[in-house]
Structures are given as structure tokens and as C-alpha cells.
């Protein structure tokens, strides 16, 4: 197991090195100029040029890349051009809404998907199964910004139960901040539940027909125990994979939802950084997201080993 883990970690490092390089190149290839955005619409070419010089954007590309990589190796992701603070600090500031939004969405998605998926498989072909399948297809095809706006319109505008946007003003308590996450978490949770439901159903169908399930039944075990202890436990590996991937997607994929609900999370930070061409911030944020993605995959791989001792890498 230790060797498998070491192998995986080496693979992760290679992936991260590729990410660092690709992100750096893509960001530099994109037209647009942070200096022009910062100085506003009426700035002159000379002003823009002098700001570029000050921001270090006039150094040669290889020079900038070496500085950047050197910084990363020392744990320094650089300084955000617009926020005038270290990139790590900017990311830490945004970590809270993104972390809790991911957590809540995943909770909602799993709480819906697991029971629905299991029951769909158990009552295969029933009206319940068909209704669940249809709803899941619907949820999977709805764009998150649309569902978000619909929820906003209904729960915030019409009923006034929630705020439509933001993350609380100065001095907002933890509870108030979490209250702002309800609608976005519901949006993301419902949409993510579709995929997990489908996978749970498929995976359960596979194992429900297996011999050991029949054996368990013939021993006179209660249906509840058969389904939860024997079938679900063995169906869990593909389900876990999907939940893990969904978590990773939510960290980065919450971009649209965060923007719609005006949440100051990592997703909206990436969007504003891209629009302003805040190079260090784009690079840092994408690196962290990619890192989390890789990390989540790593954790899932390790979980396989624990859940199913037969798994070998």
C-alpha cells in the first residue's frame, strides 16, 4: 500500500508540473493586458507601457517563467496585480465560501442520489424508477445558471426567504454567511445528484443479480440488510469515484453558480482574475484547483484500497 501511494504521489507531481507550464503558457498567449484594464478606458499607450514595466510584464517570457517557477518552489505564488496582496492570501480569503458550498452541495447531492439510486435499482422498471430516471435526465441537462436564477426568482424575490446575492456584509456571523449558501448549494446539489443517481442505480443493478446476494437472501437475511450490507457495500466503488469527481468538479465548476449568486469564492475569483488578466492570480488559482483535483483523485484511489482489499495498483 505504501508503494502504491508513493507511485501515485510521483504521478501527481508530474501532473502538477505540466499544469504549471500549460497554465503559464495559456495565460500569456491570451490577448489582453492587465495594465490596460487597471488604468481604465481613457489611459494612454505611454501610461500602459510604464505600468507594464512596473508590473514586470516587460521581462522576457522565459525570464518570467523562471521567476514564477522559482517562486512556486519556495511556496510563493506571487502578488495579485489588482488585489495588491499575495495570491495565497487572496485564495485563503475565498476558501471558506467555496469549501462550504462544495461540502453542502455534495451532501445534498449524496443524500438525494444514494437512496433514489438504490431504490430505482431495487424496483427496477417500476413507476418510481421511471420517474427517478426522467428527473435525473432533466437535472443533468439543466444549466446551473438557469436553475440558480429560477431559485433566486422564487425563493429570494417572491418568498424573500434568502438573499439573492452576496456573502453578508461587514461583521456577518458564520450562520448568516452559511444562509447565503443555501440557494447556491441547492442549485449545485440538485444538478450533481443526477449523475450520482445514475451511477448508483447502474452499480446496484450489477450487484443485485450476483450470487452472493442470492445466497444472503436464501440465508433468510432481511431485505434491508441484504441491500445495505451486501449489495450497496460492493456497489460503492464506482459510486465513490463519481462522488469524488463531483467534489473536484464542484471546486472549480462552481464558477458559474458563484458568479450568479455573487459569492466571493475561488470560482468567482478565477473569473474576475481572467477578466482583468491578473496573471499571477489566474496561475495561482488554477494551480490550486488542479492540485485539489489531483488530491481528491488520490484520496479516492486510497479509499478503494481500504474498501476493497482486492484492489492493487
Amino acid at each position, binding site marked *: 500500500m505504501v508503494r502504491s501511494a508513493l507511485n501515485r504521489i510521483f504521478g501527481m507531481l508530474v501532473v502538477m508540473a505540466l499544469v504549471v507550464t500549460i497554465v503559464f503558457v495559456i495565460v500569456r498567449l*491570451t*490577448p*489582453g*493586458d492587465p495594465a*490596460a*484594464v*487597471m*488604468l*481604465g*478606458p*481613457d*489611459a*494612454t*499607450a*505611454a*501610461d*500602459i507601457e510604464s505600468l507594464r514595466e512596473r508590473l514586470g510584464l516587460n521581462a522576457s517570457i522565459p525570464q518570467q517563467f523562471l521567476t514564477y517557477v522559482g517562486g512556486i518552489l519556495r511556496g510563493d505564488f506571487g502578488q495579485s496585480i*489588482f*488585489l*495588491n496582496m499575495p495570491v495565497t492570501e*487572496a485564495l485563503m*480569503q*475565498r476558501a471558506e465560501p467555496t469549501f462550504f458550498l462544495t461540502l453542502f452541495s455534495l451532501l445534498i447531492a449524496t443524500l438525494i442520489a444514494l437512496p433514489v439510486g438504490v431504490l430505482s435499482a431495487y424496483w427496477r422498471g417500476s413507476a418510481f424508477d421511471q420517474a427517478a430516471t426522467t428527473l435525473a435526465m432533466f437535472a443533468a441537462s439543466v444549466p446551473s*445558471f438557469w436553475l440558480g*436564477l429560477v431559485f*433566486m*426568482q422564487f425563493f*429570494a*424575490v417572491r418568498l*424573500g426567504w434568502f*438573499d*439573492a*446575492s*452576496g*456573502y453578508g*456584509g*461587514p461583521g456577518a456571523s458564520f450562520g448568516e454567511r452559511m444562509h447565503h449558501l443555501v440557494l447556491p448549494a441547492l442549485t449545485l446539489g440538485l444538478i450533481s445528484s443526477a449523475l450520482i443517481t445514475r451511477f448508483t442505480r447502474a452499480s446496484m443493478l450489477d450487484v443485485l443479480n450476483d450470487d452472493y446476494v442470492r445466497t444472503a437472501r436464501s440465508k433468510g437475511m432481511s431485505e434491508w440488510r441484504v441491500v445495505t450490507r451486501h449489495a450497496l457495500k460492493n456497489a460503492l466503488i464506482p459510486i465513490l469515484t463519481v462522488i469524488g469527481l463531483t467534489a473536484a468538479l464542484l471546486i472549480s465548476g462552481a464558477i458559474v453558480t458563484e*458568479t*450568479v*449568486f*455573487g459569492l*466571493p469564492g475561488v470560482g*468567482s*475569483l478565477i473569473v*474576475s482574475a481572467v*477578466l*482583468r*488578466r491578473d496573471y499571477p492570480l489566474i496561475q495561482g488559482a488554477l494551480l490550486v484547483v488542479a492540485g485539489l483535483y489531483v488530491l481528491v483523485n488520490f484520496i479516492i484511489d486510497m479509499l478503494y484500497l481500504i474498501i476493497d482489499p482486492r484492489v492493487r495498483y
Partner: protein
Amino acid sequence: MMKRTALAVATSVVALLSLNGVAHAQSRGGIIDVATIGEPPTLDPMASTADLVGIVTQHIFETLYTFDAKWGATPLLAAALPTISEDGTVYTIPLRTGIKFHDGSTMGAADVVASLERWTRIATRGKQAGEVITGIAATDEATVTITLSKPYAPLVALLSLNNAAAIVIPAANAAQDPLESFVGTGPYKLEDRVPDQYIQLVRFDDYQSLGGEPNGYGGARNQYLDEIRFVPVPDPSTRIGVAMAGQYDYIDQLPVESFAQIESGATDPVVLAPFGWPVFMMNTKEGLNSDIRVRKAIQAALAPEDMMIAAFGSEDFFSIDAAWYPDSFVWHTEAGTDAYKPLGDTETAKALLAEAGYDGSPLRILTSRQYEFHYKMALVAQAYLEAAGFKVQMDVVEWATLTTNRADPALWDIYITHSPFLPEPSLMGLMSDTSPGWWATDAKHQAVEAFNAESDPAKRVALFAEVQKVIYDEVPGYKVGNFNALAAQSPDLEGVTPAPWPYFWNAYVTAE
């Protein structure tokens, strides 16, 4: 019809408010949340010409002069309008005394000199003025003198503007670039800023307001509110949502087509009519549009009425107006406007194009969907230009790319932009030889220099008519029309005068 009535009501509510005919007594206290279009790129108003920067920072920092309700310059930190020497080259500015900065220190002539020097060093508009400024000196503790190499009438307007602004900060901070201490003299001071979440301003207790009545950005600045919080809500659909839900007290920059929705929601729509102009800027330096005959053909081909309808949906939200300034400004004139055809003149355009010997190479329109109305106007323009015989290439990019690409004359023939009506015509991009478009001809220089050198306001109005005539004659840009802006405010918020850069001193809340 319903909508029209509602609009009339909304506009008349605004009219009532701006006449100071307020129904409720102003009460002290309260916190307001203002939804803005995003996070300002900086809080140093010298460092940016972005409107958003000006909107937020005008509460923190103040300038020597500002604009009154009729867009005339009026003293703010200065004690009076400047005394100008006979030859127009020496401006003597008396300062108000006893003005406190947010850090407790007192403003003196040395602070003003250091700030103005920083302005000519850093700010886009300051550098523009700096080309003619030869000296800034403190004559005594309460007087500053600006010496010019030649008469330059736009100076006071430049000193009054709130973006790339000539703000006064303590001399000790003037060397900072970027600015790190946000210490001004304004009615509100910066308490806290969490980027992309809020900017919190609180009342500055040692503020000394000018006496009398409020007058535009000038006159009395009453600090009724305890706190003003600017909250970025970058997504336009979300701004509509928060306006309907009544979550914020003031919501800036709503899409005009959402008027009916806002009307049915918890906040009241506020229409600022007219707000500004959309402009097609022509690249006079390189490519197709370096030929004046091609530019004239474009001017003839375009049909502003259809373009504005496509962009703004209803005549409630725009007007067709050839004059660069609407009639609410002293600068309004019809001089030279015959060339503007509301419905376009395809035949004339065809003739002009033939005369220019157009070879069929594509006319490149650089635009963005950041502002959907730019894009919609471009689509209609494309149809009319093609009808006149042009081959049109649409280069649709996002805004940051546009701001970079427009600086390169090899990349475009027309780019689309817009601006609120600027109180002083010299501030228009066209007036500068170096702004993208690079319009620099003898006729322009003659007209603009005469306009800039004249200090008598009445004579300047007549000289601007000459400038407008040259603009229509040489077509460095095409003004499409006037458009209105839509905002929304809580029924409990009073005392806000509709303005291109909304401000919240003098605002108060009537109920919690």
C-alpha cells in the same frame, strides 16, 4: 402604455427628488448597501479613468473643484474659482482652511502641491494637463499657483473630474504609487475592504461641509448616513434579481430592458435621461479608414435609428440626436450635423465608396459583448454597411482583449465604445491625438487649440460648435445617439440625485 405611464412616474419621481422637494425630513443614521457592477480595479482615483473607481472613491477623496447641477465648475476644497491672469497662464487658487484629513492632520498648501504634482505624474488626465503646466507652487499657507506654458481652458474641468482625479491627499502619502493609505478629506472614510465582497465606508466626523444647499456634486455635502457599503454584483441578471428582491438600497447600471421587471419588484426604477453616447471610433491612422472618403461613406451608410432600437429596445430609453451634447448641456449645437441621417443614406454611401475606389477588403469592426448594446448596434451597422457595398468583418472579443487590441492600429478599422456625457468636451477621447483612433489633422488642431485656449465660457460654446463641425467633416468617430441609464433604489432611500456617477452624501433613509 402601462410601461410608458410607469416610466413617466419614475422620471417625475426623480424630478421631484432633484428639486429638493423632498417629502420626508432628513434623518441622521442608517446604513445603505449599494450594488455596483464589480470590484473597482483600484481605490486610487488618480490611477484609473474607470467610472466605477470614481463612483466609490468620490466619497473618500475630494478635489479642489467639482461640478454643480449644470456641469459648471464649483469650488470644493478650493475657497473660490481660480483667479486667472490676463494672459491666461497663471491660475491662483485660494484654499479652504481648517480642512481635516481622515488621519486627523490638517490640509495645507503643501499637501495640495504634492497631490497635484502626483496627479501630473500618475493620472492620465493629469499628464494631459502636465504638458502645459510649468509650475505648481504654494504662494502661502492657503494659496496655490499653477503656471502654464500657454492658456489652457480645460484645466478647471480636469481638476473637477472624479476619475483620473486631482484628489488632495496628505503630502506624506503623495510618493506612494500604488497608493497604500486611503486618506482623503471626503465625507466618508474607508473602514474596511474585502475584495469582491464589500467596501465599507463610515461617516468622517471631522468633515466640514460647504454651507448652503446641495448643488450637483457641489454645495453642501450632508452626512446623514452612518455607513455606505459598495457591494459588487457583476452579473446583470443577478443585479435585476437583487433589485426585484429589494436586497440592496441602490442598484447601479441595470439593463434598460428590465424596466418593467424592476417596476414590479421591491425597488423603484430610476431613469437617468440622457446618460451618454455610444460611439463608433474610426482608425484614422491605418487601413481602410485612413481614407476620409471611406469614413464619410460609413457616416452616410449608418442608420442610427435602427441601431438604437436594436440596442435599447424602446424609444423610452434612447433618443436620436446628432449633436454631440444633448440640449441639457451648454455645449449643445446643431453645427455640422447635416451629415447625420437617422435612417441612413445608402445611395450617398455607395457613391462615396465608389469615389474612394474601395477594393472590397473587409472593414473590421472590433467590438465586445461585455456591453450587449455595443454588439447589437454592430450587427445592425453591419447590415447597413453591407447594403452600401462594404464587406464587413466582425471581430467580437471580450473587453480586456478589446482594450489591448484597440491600441494597435493594425488590428481594427472601427471599435465601439460609450461614455457618459463628459462635462467638458476636452475630456472626450477624440480630442486627444494619441487616443485610439489617432485623429490628428490641421483642421482638428486649429479648432481644438482655439477651444482650449479660450477662457471666456460664452466664447468657448461658440468655439465648440466649430469643433463639432470638424468632427462631422472628418468623421474621426460616429456618435450614434443618446441613451438613458437605468438604476433602482429602495423606496426608503431618499435624497439621491440621479447622476452619471451616483453619490450618496445627502442621501438618507426614511424607515428601517
